[in-house]
């Protein structure tokens, strides 16, 4: 079986107008058309599972997952009951719901499935499933939004869902049913007069959609607290759906995004957005909040017996090592946001005459400090297996970024001194990557074996380059 994955993600609005009255307002109709387009794209992607995180299904005891294989009822909206009723009969993947529930508990979350005749499926989920899955051809699951949950809990909820998708080989579509700005008019309006409630709401919505259109989902996730303060009515503690959706996409920032529609629904911001997993080539993350694998927050009010044991063996190795410094900024210093932070008081590079001297460059990633190919040892000094080719490639990439930041390119490299911590093991892999990259540029080279480097890395390069002629 091939490993399962997310084949697409969608953001869709929650109010019933797109189902019951699209003809009453041109914008509602455009949203409806976008829903129909999204349904077609889901079909074309050959998806075999729809996963809905709904902001209109609140829960208190952890998260709840719908597990009635065929829930049927008639939904009437609390506010817009005069628009009519929506009868529904859905196709729910109960097996997946149960597996997700177990996966949640393994990652420290409170979770339960619900399977009760007459359970009131929320308006956001009903609208999404009615329009995205009109013939019920694709089985679905629905998860609630916990009123007290914050970022870590919501992120872990996505990771446990991914655990099941991967293990079961599913081709899943992740959907958040949500408004952008959620302030509605507090009095009835003539449908033809609908508009976004305020200019501020509209400007924020457009900024969010600009990011999403660029595939910058994780950036929107990390802006969630600001979004909550700026354009969300304070009904719950946080604006969560983008945390979940970003988690479902490995917290990536380089998806291919497309805004299919953006319109007002009774003043609230409604958008249909498609996020395709194909990398868009977009840049780095603007923010870098912690990545979290297990939830171990305060969920233990009743008694202490339910302590969740963290499953240590599957926790990704955390980077450790010396303290990170801001690069120094003296005269002639050249520093790059795109390069990893120094481990001491020095700049990334320094320009002298026609030459640019780079401080030793390792493979650590800017922002996350992660080591491609893995660290050479764990926090206790125990040796780990690592990939010298991936590390060497990452070093060359970092050099490229620093030179580009300085206005030059990799072509400017004149002389390189390379340091390997294990010459016997790593020389050939290192040499192979060299040949494909810097070897083609043609600098002189000296390779030395040394006992250790300050972080758990296997290779570092000292570079002298031609200084860029600009300025």
């Amino acid at each position, binding site marked *: 079986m091939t490993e399962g994955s997310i084949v697409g993600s969608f953001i869709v609005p929650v109010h019933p107008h797109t189902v019951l009255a699209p003809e009453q307002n041109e914008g509602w109709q455009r949203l409806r058309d976008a829903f129909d387009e999204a349904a077609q794209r889901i079909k074309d992607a050959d998806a075999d599972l729809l996963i809905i995180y709904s902001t209109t*299904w*609140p*829960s*208190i*005891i*952890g998260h709840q997952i719908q597990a009635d294989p065929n829930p049927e009822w*008639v939904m*009437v909206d*609390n*506010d*817009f*009951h*005069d628009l*009519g*009723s929506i009868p529904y009969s859905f196709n729910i993947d109960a097996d997946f719901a149960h597996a997700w529930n177990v996966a949640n508990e393994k990652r420290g979350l*409170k979770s339960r499935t*619900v399977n*009760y*005749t*007459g*359970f*009131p499926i*929320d308006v956001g989920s009903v609208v999404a499933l009615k329009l995205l899955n009109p013939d019920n051809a694709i089985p679905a699951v629905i998860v609630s939004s*916990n009123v*007290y949950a914050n970022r870590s809990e919501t992120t872990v909820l996505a990771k446990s869902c991914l655990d099941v998708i991967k293990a079961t080989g599913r081709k899943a579509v992740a959907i958040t049913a949500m408004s952008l700005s959620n*302030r*509605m*008019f*507090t*009095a*009835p309006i003539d449908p033809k007069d609908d508009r976004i409630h305020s200019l501020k709401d509209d400007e924020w919505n457009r900024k969010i959609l600009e990011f999403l259109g660029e595939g910058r989902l994780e950036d929107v996730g990390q802006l969630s607290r600001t979004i909550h303060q700026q354009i969300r*009515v*304070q*009904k719950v503690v946080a604006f969560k759906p983008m945390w979940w959706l970003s988690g479902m996409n490995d917290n990536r920032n380089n998806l291919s995004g497309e805004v299919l529609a953006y319109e007002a629904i*009774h003043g609230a911001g409604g958008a249909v957005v498609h996020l395709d997993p194909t990398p868009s080539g977009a840049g780095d993350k603007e923010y870098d909040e912690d990545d979290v694998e297990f939830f171990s927050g305060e*969920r*233990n*009010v*009743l*008694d202490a017996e*339910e302590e969740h044991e963290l499953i240590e063996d599957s926790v990704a190795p955390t980077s450790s090592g010396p303290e990170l410094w801001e690069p120094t900024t003296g005269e002639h210093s050249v520093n790059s946001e795109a390069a990893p932070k120094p481990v001491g008081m020095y700049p990334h590079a320094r320009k002298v005459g026609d030459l640019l001297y780079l401080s030793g460059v390792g493979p650590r990633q800017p922002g996350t400090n992660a080591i491609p190919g893995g660290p050479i040892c764990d926090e206790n000094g125990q040796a780990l297996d690592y990939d010298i080719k991936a590390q060497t490639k990452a070093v060359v990439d970092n050099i490229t970024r620093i030179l580009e930041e300085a206005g030059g390119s990799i072509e400017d490299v004149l002389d390189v001194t390379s340091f390997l911590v294990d010459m016997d093991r790593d020389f050939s892999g290192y040499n192979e990557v060299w040949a494909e990259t810097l070897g083609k540029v043609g600098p002189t080279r000296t390779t030395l074996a040394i006992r250790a480097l300050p972080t758990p890395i296997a290779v570092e390069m000292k570079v002298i380059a031609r200084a860029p002629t600009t300025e």
Partner: protein
Amino acid sequence: MTQGEIVAGCLAPHPPHLVYAENPPQNEPVAEGGWEQLRWGYERLRDSLKDVEYDAIVLLSPHWQTYVGTHFLGLPNFKSLSVDPVFPNLFRYHYDLNIDVDLTSKIHDKAAKAGLTVKMMENPDFRVDYGTITTGHMFNPAWDKPLVVISSNRSRDYYSVEVMQEMMIELGKVTREAILESGKKVVVIASNSLSHRHFTTESAIPEDMSKEHITSHAMHLWDMRMINYFRTGQAQRILDEMPEFTEQAIAESDGGGLSWLLSTLDTPSYPATLHGYGTIIGTGNAIVEWPERDHKEAKQ
């Protein structure tokens, strides 16, 4: 026509756990009891009103949440199954309740005239919220009185406690006027808890009373402060402190019920009767009665 009368006002909270613990035939799940302090409190409330004649119950529940104004159930009968979306394991109740559409319309029309945004809910498929049903059942298990059911306008979420309270005080005034003009005898009920911080875990046996307590001492202090005001006839003080109480005790008064109730009772200065107090998954709940029928000076 004779003048209408409010015979009593009640604070009567609606955690579905109470109906679950009672095991009425309408509710599907079965319990081994639990939350007796509160259920006995409801018994005392029912007892207190058993010889009092009245025609209708006017009730505001925070679980019919509306953002586009205040809504009213506007058809004579609603019959269906109510499943609590948060505690479906405890509450799946087959209800059959009657609405006093005439009194409802009177309150609705007066509120509209006073400038409030109001709407009648006339969709027969609409499912009545579990808060209304829980309080409705606990207060009157026979369901032999028609109801007026008012939604909870979430103006606190949209604006502030202060704005919410202004609107609820206005709604209370017109509710009172409409009742007095209707010639009917009525009980008015706000269905809400006091402090409202839940546990986010549930014990294996939900009715295991060894696990039940208030979530924090601060919540307890706020609840006792409010109860003291109830019992000493200081309704105005409750309204004055509502912003602090609602925010610091995360109180369910955010839905407007308590403010509306005190306004409907014309901000009573006579003492209320505390029939019971207890916690439900950590939230504080008081069952309180303002016996307006015994305070002729308060009638108008």
